């Protein structure tokens, strides 16, 4: 594999290549992809201290409304704490591909919960199924406490069905719009009646609230329960196509290619094995085609994690990690609605583009993007500038430039753009880059990260 192909693979399957390991990657594609997948065979769940819930049971909360309020407030705070923990995991993952897939599924099975225990459980379920059996995955999602709350599954009862989950199950999670009728929604909602969870978040099936009658669904009839409905949906090849297209648009190119998606669909439909699907994508020649490299606008979290992968940076205040996500329009665990983030061009507006262009210098270089053309820069000025601006910075960070210089020591500053930027550089900008002094690898890195081109991967 060429360096360019490796970089492409690692931007899509991860958040950029690890340059300190640049020489240890295998030479041929199969070994690289095999290693990528094998390294993700294990699952390392996220963890957060929830001891404040110890010994509290639902009866206490019912009897003491003020305690209940306190617990709710603490919970919200905990969910906010979970966010930087997840971001940190993405920066330093044990199972790279698994973490990348978890992020993908989080914007597919979109859910939001203010209860940290349930939110954490949900997030870890995404993680453990991320490369597994899609069938088991959907069934598990339908029984998650967070999802039962988010799409009103627990309010779905025999006498008073609630269609919210059934509708989104088909529209957003499995088939896509136009592949089922309103009648199918009504019938399948009945099959999911009786689904509920207990205080700690475990699934509970309430027999008495379940509608055991027969349902007519997608052309078949039976006394279906929720799992049966999911099985029937997955029999439709459209389901494999729907997921394949979404995977393609996320991992390959935001502009779909029918031929490639159709090939993916054939692979996926066989047994809905996610790992096999991803292996097929990463092994395909078309994945490495010129038109796919640098074709995607980074999501805010990809952008942020990518920066930290190139220049290790420590956030002195965890809340800064949240502030950056808010500025850029993607706060993990806090999606806009069940349709998730629209992605691609929707990430970019007048505000977010300016923030993106400015953030690398804010995080790594005290807000300074050097203008040094042919080395006319004055170090004294630089020191004064840093002194002056240090207190005014919106973020408190400790960038580790020594580690950067060590990791990139084999790369000539002149060639840094090929490492930092994926895809082509606009000609005018390339001309401008030629005029820049490349005396400092650090300054040049910040300059490259402050370009529109850096938004692409």
């Amino acid at each position, binding site marked *: 594999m060429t360096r360019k192909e490796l970089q492409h693979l690692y931007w899509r399957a991860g958040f950029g290549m690890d340059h300190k390991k640049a020489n240890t990657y295998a030479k041929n594609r199969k070994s690289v992809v095999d290693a990528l997948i094998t390294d993700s065979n294990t699952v390392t769940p996220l963890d957060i201290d929830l001891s404040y819930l110890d010994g509290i049971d639902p009866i206490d909360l019912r009897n003491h409304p003020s305690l209940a309020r306190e617990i709710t407030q603490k919970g919200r705070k905990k969910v906010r704490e979970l966010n930087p923990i997840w971001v940190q995991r993405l920066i330093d993952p044990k199972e790279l591909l698994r973490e990348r897939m978890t992020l993908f599924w989080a914007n597919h099975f979109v859910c939001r919960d203010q209860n940290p225990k349930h939110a954490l459980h949900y997030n870890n379920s995404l993680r453990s199924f991320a490369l597994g059996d899609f069938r088991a995955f959907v069934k598990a999602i339908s029984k998650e406490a967070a999802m039962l709350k988010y799409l009103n599954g627990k309010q779905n009862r025999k006498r008073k069905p609630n269609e919210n989950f059934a509708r989104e199950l088909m529209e957003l999670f499995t088939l896509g719009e136009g592949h089922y009728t309103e009648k199918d929604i009504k019938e399948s909602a009945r099959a999911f009646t009786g689904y509920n969870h207990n205080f700690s978040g475990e699934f509970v099936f309430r027999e008495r609230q379940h509608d055991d009658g027969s349902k007519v669904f997608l052309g078949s009839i039976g006394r279906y329960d929720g799992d049966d409905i999911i099985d029937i949906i997955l029999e439709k090849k459209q389901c494999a196509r729907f997921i394949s297209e979404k995977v393609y648009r996320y991992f390959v190119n935001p502009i779909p290619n029918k031929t490639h998606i159709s090939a993916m669909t054939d692979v996926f439909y066989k047994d809905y094995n996610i790992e096999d699907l991803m292996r097929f994508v990463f092994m395909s020649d078309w994945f490495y085609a010129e038109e796919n490299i640098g074709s*995607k606008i980074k999501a805010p979290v990809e952008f942020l994690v990518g920066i930290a992968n190139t220049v290790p940076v420590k956030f002195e205040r965890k809340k800064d990690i949240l502030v950056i996500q808010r500025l850029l329009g993607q706060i993990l665990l806090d999606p806009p609605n069940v349709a998730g983030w629209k992605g691609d061009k*929707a990430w970019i507006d007048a*505000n977010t583009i300016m923030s993106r*262009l400015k953030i690398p210098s804010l995080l790594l270089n005290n807000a300074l993007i050097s*203008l040094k053309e042919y080395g006319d820069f004055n170090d004294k000025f630089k020191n004064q500038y840093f002194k002056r601006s240090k207190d005014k910075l919106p973020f408190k960070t400790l960038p580790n430039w020594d580690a950067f210089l060590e990791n990139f020591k084999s790369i000539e500053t002149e060639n840094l753009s090929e490492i930092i930027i994926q895809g082509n550089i606009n*000609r005018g900008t390339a001309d*401008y880059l030629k005029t820049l002094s490349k005396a400092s690898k650090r300054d040049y890195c910040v300059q490259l990260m402050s370009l529109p081109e850096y938004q*692409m991967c």
Partner: protein
Amino acid sequence: MDRRKFIKDSALASSLFFVPSFVKAFESVATEKLGYRRLVIVQLAGGNDGLNTIIPHNNDVYYNARPRLAITKDIIRLNDNLGFHPSLAPLRSLFDNGELSIINNVGYPNPVRSHFRSMDIWQTASDSDEYLQSGWLGRYLDAHGQKPYNAIEMDEQLSLAMKGEHFNGIATNNYKALYKTAKDPFFKSVLNHYNDTHLSEHNLGYLYQTMIEAKSSAKYIYEKTKVKLSQQDYPQNNFAKQLKNVAQFVNSDLDTKVFYTSLGGFDTHANQQNKQSRLLEQYAESISAFVKDLKRNETFEDTLILTFSEFGRRVKQNAANGTDHGAANNVFIIGKNLKTAGFYNNLASLTDLDTNGDLKYEIDFRSVYATILSKWMNVSTKGIINSKQEVLHFI
């Protein structure tokens, strides 16, 4: 850049994915002004308790349902049945002058009682079981926007309401800081070398264009805004600051059709009285100062202010001297020359409630939007409001 040349180039380069409305975002020169009328949105976040805002002071059901929370003292009676919360005193003159229209019982079918989701519904103008990824004002921009500054949100991030399918407004709580960022000499150098060859690359071209638009919008807002104009005293709070900035923009004649402001904290589950009273005071005093500021500059006539909250609250108070999430609520329209000033309609029955014990809606919030779009902004609601809505007669 020559617009015609761009259209030609990009049509050739990517005719397959050519979307006409996408090109709107690329226009570098606004060809005409959008008209002089402006809309200011005020979002009361958290679910304002409408019943303690516009009080049914003559209704025993109200007092019985809220033994400790009902407002009994200093109600500002507006008619035999309804009156203002005492904190709304600064709005009294607007009411008397026929510059305020109160629309009762605004909501939507199958109300959702989650803040988050209900706000989403109000901002996207969707049905309660429909999930849209663009906002109603954003879709207005899709059809009519020319520059990001045609719609400004007074915050550091843009709400979904202001995001279109292809076109977005701009958010700024500090337009000077925005200008300073955009002015970074490095960006200037990059754009000096900018040429349009990259337009063959779909997404990268979009990034450059948005960067240019952002820079020129920041410059436009900064240079066009005349700071000295405002001689009006505003209260000292963040909401008032937002409105003061809006007044500056309006009075400086920025080509902005929509301004979005927000006041939060209305989620009063416990000890509601003081909290709500303080918030309503902030709201009323700030709005009153804002209207005076506009009047002084003769811009009030061309400005319409819409105040809404994502839901009202339960008729019955709870055990913690607060109220829980409800459904239908009142909406305020403030402007000159209103067709139906005062109360647009009567308050819904306090006994004929929905199964949760909440007010039933009578007017769909989207018909309020549709009315504003067609009668105030003078545009068709097609493509902006997806469901068929009755046009009301408050303007």
